[in-house]
């Protein structure tokens, strides 16, 4: 489904943060991308989503065979990509309901489907709100404005539930969450798993992976994947930290 080859990227003319990432994700799989601060794991998520602050300097990335890197961020969303933001953006003045319905309808339009009206949309929302334990009243609030950290992350999962992406990338969704919020978020993600979609969980800590069990774990260091393995690799990292991995990466650099 997702095929990344030798992907290199940087921020605004600086040195490369991603120095050649190669990663394949198939339908039905959950991949965890782990690594210390500054290893490039969030950059990978941002580059795949098309954040204009990052510049791709080499390599390829395709989603179901289509060239992701040639697409605008909104086209990537239409193609089935979704990134849950580490720091969801506050948009005062735009209600959650309006925002989500606009997104939902634009994706439908891109697939040649009829738009849904506000009433139909409310039905869709009701089912999904329960999934992340949110009140209907939050639909009338401005997008993320004045939300607590936990509410923002739950709102990201709510969006993901409504938009039903082919590929979801969770960018450090666990950071700053208490254990209850973490559980709600993880359960939401698990319920959304289908044989025809895939998830990439970007995280610094192993604890989220107790709730979302990955099929594969990849460790990033200094812009490269330095080790890949099964879920047991996450436990190893939890135990030993990242230090034992960093020296070989530096040796390569």
């Amino acid at each position, binding site marked *: 489904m997702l095929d990344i080859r030798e992907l290199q990227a940087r921020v605004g003319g600086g040195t490369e943060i991603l120095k050649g990432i190669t990663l394949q994700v198939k339908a039905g799989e959950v991949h965890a991308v782990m690594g210390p601060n500054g290893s490039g794991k969030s950059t990978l998520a941002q580059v795949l*989503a098309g954040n204009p602050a990052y510049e791709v300097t080499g390599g390829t990335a395709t989603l179901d065979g289509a060239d992701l890197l040639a697409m*605008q961020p*909104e086209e990537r969303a239409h193609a089935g990509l979704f990134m849950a933001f580490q720091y969801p953006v506050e*948009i005062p*003045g*735009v209600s959650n309901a309006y925002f989500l319905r606009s*997104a939902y309808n*634009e994706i439908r339009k891109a697939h040649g489907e009829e738009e849904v009206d506000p009433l139909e949309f409310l039905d869709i929302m009701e089912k999904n709100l329960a999934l992340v334990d949110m009140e209907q009243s939050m639909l009338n609030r401005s997008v993320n404005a004045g939300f607590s950290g936990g509410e923002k992350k739950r709102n990201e999962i709510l969006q993901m539930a409504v938009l039903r992406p082919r590929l979801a990338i969770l960018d450090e969704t666990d950071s700053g969450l208490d254990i209850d919020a973490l559980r709600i978020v993880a359960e939401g993600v698990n319920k959304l798993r289908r044989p025809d979609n895939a998830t990439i969980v970007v995280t610094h800590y192993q604890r989220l992976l107790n709730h979302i069990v990955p099929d594969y774990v990849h460790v990033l260091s200094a812009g490269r994947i330095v080790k890949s393995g099964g879920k047991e690799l996450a436990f190893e990292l939890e135990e030993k930290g990242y230090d034992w991995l960093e020296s070989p990466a530096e040796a390569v650099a």
Partner: protein
Amino acid sequence: MTAPVVLRDFEQFAANGGGGGPSWLLPLRRAAIDRFAALGYPTPKNEDWHFTSVSPIAEGAFHAGPPAASVRLEAKDIEPFTFGRPDWIRLVFVNGRFDGALSSDIARPRGVRVTDLAAAWRDQPDLLERHIGKVADFQQTAFTALNTAFMHGGAVIQLAPNVQLDTPVHLVFVSTPDAAGSASHLRTLIVAGHHSKATVVESYVSMGGAAGYFTNAVTEAVLEDGATLAHLKLQTESERAFHVGTLQARQGRDSHLVSFSYAAGGELARTNIYTLLNGEGSGATLHGLYLLDGEQHVDQQTRIEHASPNTFSREVYKGILDGASHGVFNGQVYVRPEAQKTDGKQENNNLLLSAQARVDTKPQLEIFADDVKCTHGATVGRLDELALFYMKSRGIGAERARKLLTYAFAAGVIEAVGLPEVRAELEALTLRRFTGAAAGS
């Protein structure tokens, strides 16, 4: 700067009877034109006009008064300006002339008088003598002096004590291409008796193509004790027009002025909202929105004078500037020594959509009392790139994301508009205005 054209025009106007009216009127007009001759048009050396040059108005040599010939408008012509509410009390002025046929013939409730100025000179001379020129000072303000010398057209709205008028009063000032070269010195008087309540909407609109004319409007408002006046000014003049519009209010004890000013028209436009909080417990809530594009220069000045204890003011003005437009906001708050416990808040936020657009924002607080709470803030920013990316990453196209964010910026002040019909119109105008805007960034 002297202005021989208007002085000459005045002599001719005076020789022809000065537009009639009661015996005290012509001497008032003459005092005003003399004052104007002494003041001249303001220059940027004048603090109040620091960012705005009115030389195009001075050089425009506009002739005071309605044009000699003016096209007849029909009811359907003004329909686009009536918010779909034929049941409002509506007075329509075409190129500065009252048009009774286009105005609504709705019976005024008991205790409410709404007439055009020409009729009021005849029917309510005492009321006019008591108030005209008493609230809007022409000693210091050149455009008000000019208006007082030539005032014609406009309305007189009088509410008896304790009258609550639920039907809005709508004054529609339409300019057509016939107005080219002329100046309308419109004067409106609102007298709200004690504990009365009303909503007055003033629309300045143009139709039939762009024309270079000059609107110089003054509205005087007297709010007696406990009165509430909601005043909405909607300025969408022709893109080649010049506009100077002043609302000047004097407020009694526990009265409340709720003002909304929308400015989107004119090549050069200035709105002044001035109020004197002259009674304990009185207050003013001022909201404003200016949407500029092209080469427009639009200036808003507000002045709130806290002259009594326990008075309050709340002010939020927002500007959205595109193209090579230039916006100005100057918010003056004076707190006199006796106005203890004044509670004032002022905010001005600007959104620049292009690299060429610019704004000068100048909050100005002068506080002479020692026990007051006054805050102000001003911001100038661009569309948040991260918020744009966030929306796009959810599938919302670039154009729509920009529109939504722009609209969201304005939404805070639009929501403050009490009349749903006007609010809906402003929402539509804000969204429409930025459809397809390249937005430069």
